[in-house]
Structures are given as structure tokens and as C-alpha cells.
């Protein structure tokens, strides 16, 4: 139940974020739905560790975003960016930089490395999603 409530909050937050970038209301709602789904998957797979959970979640966001964008004949970026915003390591990067400022360089380095690994896993998940959907779409087009 808690996961569902958090996913709803994630959907509202990511939908609002998409709206701030001037998306239409429909695209903001869809971006929010993708974000909520992403957080739901992230919460379910959190037991495997942050990196693995982020990778799986980014893959699901990428696949969902690409499929919805294909149906609506729009680019997938607005939906995917709306979706991944709940996963991006902005707060971790901020904490890392804060540690550097207060002179705790070792803690800062660890957190910055975490932030880059999470960013890398999001990027990897999205690239894999693009590759999978490209193959699927090409196959459908040939038929």
C-alpha cells in the first residue's frame, strides 16, 4: 500500500515537472504515469541494490515511454524525461558537493561516485530500451 501511495506521489511530482517544461496537459499526465510506474518498479526491485533497481526501472520507463510515444506519434523524450526525473541522482550529487564544501572529501567522493553510477545505470537502461523498441518497431513495420 505504501509503495502505491509513493508511486502516486512520484506520478504527481514527475507530471508537474514535465508541465514546468511546457509539455501539454496530456503529455504531462502521461509523463507522470511513466514516472509513477518507474518509481513503482524501483520500489519493488530496491532489494537488489540502488544501481540494479535504477537500471531495471530506467529500462521500464524507456520501454513504456517509447511505446506510448509511438502510439501518440510524438518524440519519446518528454515522456522519458518526465519518467526518469524521479530516479536522477540530483540530491545525491548535491549531498556529495556539500561534503566537499565542508571538508569531508572522502564522503563526498563516495557519494559523487554513487551519483555517477546511478546516472550511468539510467543511461544504460534507456539505451537498452531504445535498442529493444527499435527492433520491435522495425519488425512490426516490415509485416
Amino acid at each position, binding site marked *: 500500500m505504501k509503495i502505491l501511495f509513493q508511486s502516486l*506521489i512520484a506520478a504527481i511530482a514527475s507530471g*508537474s515537472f514535465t508541465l*514546468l517544461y511546457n509539455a*501539454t496537459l496530456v*503529455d504531462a499526465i502521461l509523463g507522470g504515469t511513466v514516472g509513477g510506474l518507474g518509481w513503482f518498479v524501483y520500489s519493488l526491485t530496491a532489494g537488489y541494490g540502488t544501481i540494479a533497481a535504477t537500471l531495471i526501472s530506467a529500462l521500464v520507463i524507456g520501454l513504456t515511454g517509447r511505446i506510448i510515444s509511438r502510439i501518440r506519434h510524438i518524440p519519446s*523524450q518528454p515522456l522519458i524525461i518526465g519518467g526518469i526525473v524521479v530516479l536522477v541522482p*540530483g540530491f545525491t550529487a*548535491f549531498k556529495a*558537493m556539500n561534503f566537499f564544501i565542508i571538508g569531508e572529501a572522502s564522503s563526498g567522493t563516495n557519494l559523487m561516485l554513487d551519483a555517477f553510477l546511478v546516472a550511468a545505470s*539510467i543511461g544504460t537502461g534507456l539505451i537498452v530500451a531504445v535498442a529493444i523498441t527499435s527492433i520491435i518497431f522495425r519488425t512490426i513495420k516490415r509485416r
Partner: protein
Amino acid sequence: MERELDFMTDIAAALMRCGSPTTRTETWVSRIGQKLGFEVETAIIYTVIYITIKDINGNSLTITKRTGDLSSDFNKFIKIDRLIKEFIDGKINFEDANAELKKIVNESYTYPIWIRIIAAALVCGGFEYLLIGGLMSAVASMVLGALVYSVSNYIRLLDNRFFQQFSAGIMISLGAWLLLPIFKGSTLSGIISGAIMLFVPGLLITNGFSEISQSSVVSGTVKESEALALLIALVFGISAGTVFIGGMKF
């Protein structure tokens, strides 16, 4: 030939200003060029666009253009993307596409400020709840996020992103300190963690990595460097604000 090249450059610049990924923009420009009957070489390095076209007689023309400040406007991005698809599919001719592009670029529709302030508040409160978990801190983050977002809309007029981030950092830390006694049960780190989410360049970090892995190494690396600079400005701003409070640890 010059008109066609100008059209391709305008498309590339408009896409980049709307937040299009570098690789996608390069692909679109190449396909437009092919549609117009040219051989095309394109390189987009963050804010600089290089396009060379060559016709069947071997005459070539090169253009270099700076895009200026990059931001994200999904509405324009979707419209330009649709226009390109229609042009490539032959549903619209060159003249009409050129006119339509100018019309889209000159559009300046944004949501009313009150809608954007509510959206900013929901982003801040939502992220605080997801990342930290305190309900009162989430409410305080919503209030602070809305206030800082509205003020930073005016500071944006100064057109210096480092200064915008720095001033947002100062406002967030001082605002969090002022809101702490009003919202009983909230924490300083909780309020700040939600309010900063509008300003941390998390997307830039992720997009930068995506571009590096899609062979746009220079563009991706530049994005990572910019993200780092913006992050430093934000943290310096928060640190400057917290000097008055007496230090803060997360």
C-alpha cells in the same frame, strides 16, 4: 542551396533550444538534407552547430552557428518534430515547412505563472516525501519551492545561470531557516532537499551520460561539466546562506 542550408540550420538550432538530444538532432538534419538532395555532414557540439552540404555537382557549403542558451520546451519540440516528419514524408513542401518553422519558433506560449508555481510546489513536496519522507518537511518544501521558483523567474532575466543557481541556493537556505519554526516537526535538511530539486542538474548529468554512450562524447562531456558548475554554484549559494545559520550537515 543557401536557403536550404539556412533551413537545416534553423531546424537544428530550434531543436537544440527546445531540449532535443544531440544525436536525434543530427539524425533529423541529415535526413532533411537527403530529402533535399544533398550529401550532408553534421556535427553538433553542445551549443555549436556545424553543417556541410554537397550537391550532385560537387558544390559544397558549410555553416557554423551558435544556438545560444539551451533550455527545454516540450511543446515546441513536439511541434518541430512533427513538422520534420511531415516534410520528410512529403506531406509539406519546402516553402510551407520554412514558414511553419518560423511560426513555431516565434510562438511564446507558456502556462500562466500560477500554474507553474503550483507545479513547482508539487515537484518540491513530492520529491521531499520520496527522498526523505517527512510530511511537515514536504509541506514546508512546497511553500519554499513555490516562493523560490517565483522569485527566480525574475532573476532569470539577468541571463547568468551560475548567478541564478547561486542566488537560488542562498534563497533556499535562508527560506528553510525561516520556515523551520513555522512548520513544527519539519527538518532543515528535509526542507532544503525538496526545494533544491528544481535546481539540481540531475537531468543534465543523466543526459550527458546518455550522449557519451551514444558516441556524442564531446557534447556529453560538456553537459557533465556544465552540470558540475551549476551544482557547485547551487551548493556555494546554500553554503553562503547557512553561514548565517551556523552550519548544516546532511
